[in-house]
């Protein structure tokens, strides 16, 4: 049963990490507000595939103006990273607390308030130490693969989300427009007693 849980966790984690990584570009260069270049495939991969496969973005994040008239994302880049890593941890936590079959089958032999659980993979909080090959009593940490998968995801997400700040910086040139109060300007220009002629209005609209 523990082998089954290990197999399930290995397959699921690798598939999840691969799935997220498949959406992350190899490189991203922000040239302008309307010109962002993402590279998803290397030249070798394109040659092997014949043509690059079309990609769609994983997340939709909006940009809006905050109270200080500055642009910001609806979801912070750091929050995106934290959310994905939290999902990673929650998946592993879902495997915990599976009661031993023995206890379920033979309740008369086990105390009902002391649950015995199956051993499941747990993510190490720090990099597991590599055992000394000379000391045969030391064994490698069986959860090293989880730590490596987590770190791989963490590093790649951090790399990919960094250009989001660069993109936000390209919007700084519109800071004057962000501070505009359209209602105040309309009110200032509006003259109820002398409304502008239709032709004048049309000319103004076409001019702008």
């Amino acid at each position, binding site marked *: *049963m523990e*082998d*089954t*849980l290990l*197999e*399930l*966790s290995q*397959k*699921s*984690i690798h*598939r*999840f990490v*691969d*799935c997220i990584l498949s*959406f992350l570009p190899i490189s991203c260069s922000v040239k302008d507000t309307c010109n962002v270049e993402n590279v998803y495939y290397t030249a070798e991969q394109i040659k092997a595939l014949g043509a690059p496969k079309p990609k*769609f*973005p*994983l*997340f*939709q*994040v909006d940009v809006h103006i905050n109270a200080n008239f500055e642009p910001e994302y609806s*979801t912070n880049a750091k*929050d*995106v990273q934290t*959310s994905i890593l939290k*999902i990673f941890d*929650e*998946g*592993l936590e*879902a*495997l915990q*607390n*599976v*009661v031993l*079959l*023995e206890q*379920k*089958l*033979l309740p*008369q*032999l086990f105390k009902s308030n002391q649950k015995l659980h199956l051993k499941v993979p747990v993510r190490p909080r720090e990099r597991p130490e590599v055992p000394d090959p000379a000391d045969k009593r030391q064994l490698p940490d069986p959860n090293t693969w989880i730590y490596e998968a987590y770190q791989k995801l963490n590093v790649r997400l951090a790399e990919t989300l960094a250009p989001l700040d660069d993109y936000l910086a390209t919007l700084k040139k519109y800071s004057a427009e962000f501070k505009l109060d359209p209602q105040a300007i309309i009110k200032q220009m509006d003259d109820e007693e002398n409304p502008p002629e239709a032709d004048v209005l049309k000319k103004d609209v076409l001019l702008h």
Partner: protein
Amino acid sequence: MQRQLPSSQVPRFNPHPPMEPPKEKKKTLEIEPISPIKRRMGKLKEPTADEQVEFTKHNIEDLLLGMGVEFRNPEKVAGGWLPLEAYDDKEFDTRLPSAWVNPNGSLLGGPREGVGAQGLWKDKDGLCYWRKLRIMKYLPKTDRYEGFWENTREKVRLARIFIHFEDEDPKIFSRRFAAAHQKRKHADALIKYNYYIDNMPKHQIPEVDTNQTNRVLQMTQNTKALRGKSSADTTTLLNEVNVDFAKTMNKIIFDKHCSDKGNNLITGKLDLPPPIEKKEVPYFGMIRIPPHDFPSSVTHFILHTLQRYTEVIKTQQEIRKECNDVASKDIYNPNITKTMKVDEFKQIQSSSTSQTGYYLKETWLNKLKDTTKQNFEKPGDQASLPGFNLNVGSKAEYDQSDLKRFLVQ
């Protein structure tokens, strides 16, 4: 070895430069301890310095030509149209394919500058020469090695049979190459041989007579599945039998003609593989095993196995099936088909995670419990098998029972 170029042609780059003399290695005073049991299981046997010097003394081209292998002009060799790698006997290899490129099994791969080797290079005229190259990596999907020619730096992908590694014994490699060549010749001859036979006229060959046909039909239709189904149409099958019969007769005629009158009707001599020697028919229709203590072996086996009861085997099968079902599930949802907001993504993943968690803690566990109970308990809460009592009263009794061995295995 070098090709004679017509004087009218402009002299061009010599594709086969003379081999450099092997550099003398500094002799060290280190003495390797003689310890045949020191080597760990699975560790590669690296060639010693002396062996490597010995390897460099042999020229692969000379070795191959000495064995009568014509590698220089493959198109003119019998069977040259067939891919040589298809006839490569990998039993000759002393290492796994990837171990040639990455001898230490390092996760970072092999040396950055690649592994030295010689590869069979084909020029524009289709002539082949052995040239030095550096192998960078092994491609398991295509079973090819990737690298580049040392002098032109041109990228190349070659099958194993066309690469002789520097660490490889040239004598073994030349035997491997010669064996592949010979096998390809045989394959070519067999293709031609069968082609001749397939194209011999069949209309003059008598068909299987009525008595034989009836005997065949009687024997084939008198099986459990076909008995009583006399309406089954056998015409097509009988036609196939007649075609096979005619082919076999033609084969006998062709063999007799070739042995009596030689190759006067065909284009050339066929280099067929030697006929397979028929094994001696055993006198007994069973395998003879040496005398042994059968009752004691059986008793020993029964005492140590849990699979002596049908119920145990059945339970194990059902538990295995349930476990396989769990292993095929997914904790997360990796099937993302559209762009979504972060909250929506979190919700999808959270739903998938909680579903799997619930399945493991409730459904899976209850299924395993029910399966075990159904097979190990009789109606009335009685144990159906000795040693598998689910109503065992004490922990000590349980610790000694087969049930514990079954549950904690």
